[in-house]
């Protein structure tokens, strides 16, 4: 295992030390692994909390700051944080207007946030569960779809709404609308390697790739021979378009790197993806290209498409100032 770490057990703790040092505008509660804003919002404004397993950086801590999250709670690598951390974080950021829990749909995350909400007295909590990954068949009998790239969009758009002083039900409703009209699909050229295990989670021969992977090193829906960027773009975009009606509304599109794929390739992929979308009549109004929701050292990418209405576009464009998303301010 080739990693820039000291010991597998200390990765998260020490990474948070570095994060705290690099971003003096943020605060870190090291005991509870909570990253929160140095400057809190005015009393009476809704606060946003997200969190989940680590290893997806910059998600979520890199999106704490003006216009996005109020705090992020970091679990161990690929492991949901525990209720007591979530409770502590929720209490810390509550400004008296309630807290929106932004949850990626994984059994562990959902259960831990649920336990936290059950135990939280005195704080109004609403919840949005993101389940945008169409690689997974949806069904009420299963765990349902995973939450992946769309999380960035939910955090940005709901964060901007909260910053404007809107009420909790409104912010949560907006977040749910984003969830309803966004879809993602990912692929991997290589597996990631958990620091604690030291070996790739799955073996991927030199001539193959995984289509429909998540962000936890879990294998995808199918393994296919390596293909060109153009064909890969098709394998990601077509199912997204088949799953949701995007026609008409302008789209916000993210071409996301899984962690180990260089930017030169991500831009190339974005060109392919955008071409396919425009050909299908989806006009790309805004875009993000880069590493936003990663899976440690996995090579690969994912595509997220959101059918955005004017309100969402406006909130997308609103000023944001976080370590990993910043504009207009």
């Amino acid at each position, binding site marked *: 295992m080739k990693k820039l770490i000291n010991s597998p057990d200390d990765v998260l703790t020490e990474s948070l030390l570095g994060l705290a040092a690099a971003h003096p505008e943020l605060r870190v509660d090291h005991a509870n692994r909570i990253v929160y804003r140095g400057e809190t919002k005015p009393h009476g404004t809704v606060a946003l909390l997200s969190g989940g*397993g680590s290893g997806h950086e910059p998600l979520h801590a890199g999106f704490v700051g003006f216009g996005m999250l109020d705090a992020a709670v970091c*679990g*161990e*690598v*690929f*492991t*949901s*944080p*525990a*209720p*007591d*951390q979530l409770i502590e974080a929720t209490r810390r950021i509550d400004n008296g207007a309630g807290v929106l829990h932004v949850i990626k749909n*994984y*059994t*562990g995350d959902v*259960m*831990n946030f*649920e*336990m936290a909400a059950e135990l939280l007295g005195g704080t109004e909590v609403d919840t949005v569960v993101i389940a945008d990954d169409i*690689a*997974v*068949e949806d*069904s009420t*009998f*299963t*765990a349902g779809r*995973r939450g992946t790239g769309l999380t960035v969009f939910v955090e940005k758009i709901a964060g901007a709404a909260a910053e404007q002083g809107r009420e909790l039900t409104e912010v949560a409703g907006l977040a749910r609308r984003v969830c309803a009209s966004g879809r993602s699909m990912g692929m991997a050229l290589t597996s990631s390697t*958990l620091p*604690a*295990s030291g*070996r790739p*989670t*799955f073996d991927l021969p030199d001539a193959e790739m995984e289509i429909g992977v*998540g962000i*936890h*090193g*879990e*294998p995808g*829906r199918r393994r296919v021979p390596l293909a060109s960027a153009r064909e890969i773009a098709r394998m990601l975009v077509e199912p997204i378009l088949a799953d949701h009606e995007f026609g008409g509304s302008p789209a916000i599109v993210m071409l996301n790197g899984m962690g180990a794929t260089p930017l030169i390739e991500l831009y190339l992929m974005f060109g392919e993806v955008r071409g396919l979308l425009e050909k299908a009549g989806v006009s790309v109004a805004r875009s993000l290209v880069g590493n936003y929701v990663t899976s440690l050292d996995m090579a690969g990418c994912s595509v997220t498409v959101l059918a955005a209405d004017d309100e969402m576009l406006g909130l997308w464009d609103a000023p944001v100032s976080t370590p990993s998303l910043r504009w207009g301010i």
Partner: protein
Amino acid sequence: MAVTFVQFMDWLRLTDEHVIEARSELTELDSAIGDGDHGINLSRGCAASSGKVDSEKPEYLDDMFTLVGMTLVSSVGGASGPLYGTFFLRFATSAGHRQELTPVQLASALEAGLAGVVQRGKPELGDKTMYDAMQPAVLAFRNAIKTGDVAEAALLASRAAAAGRDATADLVARKGRASYLGERSVGHIDPGAASTALLFQSLAEALA
């Protein structure tokens, strides 16, 4: 013949040992159909929980198992943390402020734990989760104490858990991360079912 406090301590200690022994095996199972951390998560949790029990030295079953449950919830994370945590928290409530349990009381405590898992995770039989090992084990224990002694019952529960674990191999996962794989999950044992089998194996050893 009641199950003593020392036997319950043994149960926890043995579980601890078996989980640590099986750390990489559990992780391997989880790598095949999940995210490869189940062994890591549980060993971290067991270490934290024995540490807590060692330092706080609870003297009653409700205190001890509440401590275990709380520690698991806050140190395991992931899906198995809340599930095993809830199992022990409910077990504690059912066990009550006692230092030993009759076989019938133990059966009820196990059932309470099982009900907690159901409430938390909404698993059904055949979903390919820890529930597929836990449900038959708890049922076997309840049935066995009607006729046999508690050691025998724990042994039968352990066998039922192991059989439930093995049977998960043929299932298509419908809950947890393995469900993302659909048909590709077939042929692999569920890691949570494997750790649940260890829990009941430890109980059988503690009561033997």
